């Protein structure tokens, strides 16, 4: 029995497409402790969203298929659960927030009705109790006149407000885990700051664990305690947040951080640019997926895929090269 709240081992997910089988996730393993905030970063197509959707049993099958792996949550394997079983977990013990607050709410149902549904379904409240609790939840996420707004429809809310509603809904059944997939990407920076502030406050009040998926290394820096960097459907680096940003070790992480201009930059320097573009994996990678874009790449990198190795306590990297010396590790 592991001491993790969520323990994912060797997860592999593929999709059948007209062009061939797409290997989206190629053996991902990580653990999440209770109350911990884990940031998952990577560019589009790196497999970060598919990993979480696989864990939640939300991969449409076909075309998707979970080929291997397990995701242990309170002693049960989420991957092996039937649809009926996982529905009891989703929304109750695991809350979810998605990127687009415009499309993840049902436009023809009132906000109140949508907030009440999980409460009646999972907690067993009656209509009146659920309605009261829904108003409390809206208040908790900072929506003024919460009681009156229950009868409003989603189009009467702004983007930032809708994302607040989504968060209220995700937290309605007091989940132990909140999975947020790019929840602030569609929002403006001042609204993003509001939402991040809200999430930090709720985390302190409610103590749930969070998996925060983002392509924005800045957002993750301000929120996460531990960070996973993904590339080509694999975890290529994992470290505590301070360690990752102070000592990025994988060539991809180094490149990604170097290619970001900083708003607090002292002087103007040329941006570091990683040449080429991320891979589209129609074959399961047998070599390091980053090798074609890596300036450190050696012969071995083109032949064997490196596994995650511990380089210092709580810092793991999948790379054949020691980027500090430029020689083989």
């Amino acid at each position, binding site marked *: 029995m592991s001491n993790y709240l969520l323990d994912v081992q060797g997860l592999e997910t593929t999709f059948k497409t007209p062009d061939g089988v797409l290997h989206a996730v190629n053996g991902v393993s990580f653990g999440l402790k209770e109350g911990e905030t884990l940031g998952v970063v990577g*560019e*589009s197509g790196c497999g970060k969203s598919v990993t979480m959707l696989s864990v939640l049993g939300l991969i449409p099958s076909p075309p998707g298929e979970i080929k291997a792996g397990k995701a242990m949550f309170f002693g049960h394997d989420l991957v092996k659960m039937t649809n009926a079983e996982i529905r009891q977990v989703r929304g109750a013990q695991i809350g979810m927030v998605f990127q687009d607050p415009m499309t993840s709410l049902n436009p023809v149902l009132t906000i109140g009705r949508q907030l009440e549904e999980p409460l009646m379904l999972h907690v067993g409240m009656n209509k009146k109790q659920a309605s009261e609790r829904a108003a409390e939840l809206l208040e908790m996420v900072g929506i003024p006149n919460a009681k009156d707004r229950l009868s409003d429809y989603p189009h009467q809310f*702004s983007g*930032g*407000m809708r994302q607040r509603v989504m968060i209220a809904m995700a937290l309605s059944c007091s989940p132990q885990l909140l999975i947020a997939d790019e929840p602030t990407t569609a929002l*403006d*920076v*001042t*609204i*993003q*700051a*509001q939402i*991040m*502030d809200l999430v930090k406050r709720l985390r302190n009040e409610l103590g749930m664990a969070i998996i925060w998926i983002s*392509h*924005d*290394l*800045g*957002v993750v*820096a*301000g929120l996460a305690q531990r960070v996973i960097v993904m590339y080509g459907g694999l975890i290529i680096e994992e470290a505590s*947040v*301070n360690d990752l*940003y*102070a000592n990025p070790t994988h060539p991809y992480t180094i*490149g*990604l*951080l*170097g*290619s*970001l*201009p*900083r*708003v*607090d*930059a002292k002087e*103007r320097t*040329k*941006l*570091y*640019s*990683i*040449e080429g*573009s*991320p891979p589209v994996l129609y074959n399961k990678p047998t070599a390091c997926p980053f090798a074609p874009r890596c300036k450190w790449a050696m012969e071995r990198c083109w032949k064997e895929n490196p596994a995650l190795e511990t380089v210092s306590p709580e810092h793991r990297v999948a790379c054949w090269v020691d980027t500090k010396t430029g020689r083989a590790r």
Partner: protein
Amino acid sequence: MTSNNDTLLKVDDLTMHFPIYRGVFQRQVGAVRAVDGVSFEVKRGETLGLVGESGCGKSTTGRTILQLYKPTAGSVTFDGQDLVKMKGEELRIMRRKMQMIFQDPYASLNPRMTVEELVGEPLIVHNVVPPKEVSEHVKHLLETVNLNPAFASRYPHEFSGGQRQRIGIARALALQPSFIVCDEPISALDVSIQAQVVNLLEELQDQFNLTYLFIAHDLSMVRHISDRVAVMYLGVIVELTGRDELYNKPLHPYTQALLSAVPIPDPVADAQRQRTILEGDVPSPANPPSGCRFRTRCPIAEARCAEARPEFREVEPGHFVACFFAERFLK
């Protein structure tokens, strides 16, 4: 603001209102005040960054400058000539000097045209190169934006987002413009690709002495690429100054809040920062607040802010602010 030879573009009190029609008779019942009296200059060879949140009118400003919309009021003087008064052939010839790079490299390229047709189209339309030499010109342009000239016969769908944006840049460069409006050219791209495109834009600027109006919502990238930065809020410019000045000494409360909301990819620096979190949302540009546009969210607003619109004034040399209380933040 005085004009001289260094000024390539002078925008004076530019206004763009889009009418709202309602009812059976389609009567005009109001207007979306997308751009509401904007004035600034762009000097030859510089990059002016234009930042703001979605719906603030920054893209409309760029498009109105290029006369893609007919402005409601105001003037746009490009190279000493007023574009607003121009029509037909005169304007068409002027357009050779002003080009645009669009945000979405997926939507801005015709999927049924090959790269050669796409990049060569402006050359043919403006008849600047004999038809026989177009192909040679296109190859040269592709090399300029670091694309393999052998790809000329391919279609847009065969390229990645970053490559498509390079095609869009090659197309914009085809007529050897002196001024390019870059409308969020990197927002749709992945982080590692953004740096490639920004570096390319900087190289091209040095090579061809280009002047950019760089529109973006990403303040970190705007700081990186711009010489001067203008901040827009709800159809007006609230602050305009040099890039370092703006980031080190923001004088408008909106700029201050915007800067403090930008995440920094450094957990230690991020934790030490003072943050101003604005409340509420941006009001609708169809019904903007009276007086100062920002007063409904402003932490220091007073009664007079609702009565009169603060003048866009030069508080320090080259530092323009539209706020009654800008002096408070001068050290």
